[in-house]
């Protein structure tokens, strides 16, 4: 896909990035990415991908906008309270990038819809709060051999890794069962979800445009309380029931 003059103008600042260039921009324009849950974390992922010129976003997010969304879900607005979240998400992304093709799924990822959602895309960013959703996405990505960017947060802390099926550990290697102690609601600032969302978006951009060094087999952890960042190698689990040999 060749860029036209308007695209060269809009993306001029990032086309100047070494190793990315016009070829990278063309790859982004022909890439389709699933962002599953477009909440605190996923809204920033989707915004950054839309701003960067990704060609198509498949967005899965159910429910209506609630007051407690507004501290971090940057694609929701006060005047949208009580209305379907996905409508505000799609409208605001189109305001930013009218060329962006959006497939808006008004439901969260589940074992029922996940294969259909993943099939439409080249890679996936998991921003879901429930491990049942996260496992459904992971398992579908392994089945379909799609890269999965995994992002998570708690309080002022966050972690990310990028999964390439068959090469790196998958999410089930890290967490073989649904964690019994995990609760749907947890403490977090919007600035934390925005930080980890931006990094997750950059991971997706690097994978799509084939440049840089994604977090394959590596977990990035950070804590904005003291602004510390750490990288650690993570391991495949030989007896993983999803990706094990």
């Amino acid at each position, binding site marked *: 896909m060749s860029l036209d003059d308007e695209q060269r103008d809009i993306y001029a600042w990032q086309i100047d990035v070494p190793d990315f260039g016009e070829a990278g921009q063309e790859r982004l324009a022909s890439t389709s990415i699933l962002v599953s*849950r477009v*909440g*605190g*974390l*996923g809204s920033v992922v989707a915004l950054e991908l839309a701003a960067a010129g990704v060609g198509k976003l498949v967005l899965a997010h159910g429910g209506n906008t609630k007051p407690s969304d507004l501290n971090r879900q940057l694609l929701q607005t006060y005047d949208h309270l009580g209305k379907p979240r996905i409508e505000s998400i799609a409208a605001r992304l189109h305001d930013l990038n009218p060329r962006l093709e959006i497939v808006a799924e008004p439901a969260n990822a589940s074992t029922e819809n996940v294969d259909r959602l993943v099939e439409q895309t080249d890679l996936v960013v*998991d*921003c*879901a*709060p*429930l*491990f049942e959703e*996260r496992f459904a996405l992971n398992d579908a990505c392994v089945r379909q051999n799609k890269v999965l960017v995994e*992002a*998570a*947060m*708690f*309080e002022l*802390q*966050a*972690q990310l890794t990028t999964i390439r099926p068959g090469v790196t550990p998958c999410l089930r290697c*890290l*967490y*073989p*069962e649904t*964690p*019994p*102690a*995990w609760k*749907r*609601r*947890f403490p*977090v600032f919007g600035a934390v*979800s925005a930080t980890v969302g931006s990094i997750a978006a950059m991971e997706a951009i690097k994978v799509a445009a084939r440049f840089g060094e994604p977090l394959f087999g590596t*977990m990035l*952890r950070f*804590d904005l309380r003291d602004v510390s960042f*750490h*990288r*650690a*190698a*993570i*391991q495949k*689990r030989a007896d993983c029931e999803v990706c094990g040999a």
Partner: protein
Amino acid sequence: MQVTFEFLAQLRTLAGTANESRDVDASTTVQQAVLDLARERGGDFAKLVLDATGERLHPSMLLFVGDQQVVWDEPGPLHDRARVVLAPPIAGG
């Protein structure tokens, strides 16, 4: 030798601190050090860190020594000033 445990996410809340330094014998493995720590702290801390048998790391807990993940069934030697990280599962939202 001295090792420092770092507690992340919910575990930090339960521990009431971000880290704890302890003196251990030179022959202590990371597995034994984690078992000793969890058993001494007990209560909800131990329930989050250990599985139902109380003999192994909970399968949802990630364990790191420095910049390497440690799998429970593989050798886990420690060294003086090692940083042992216990990371409970977290997600998006």
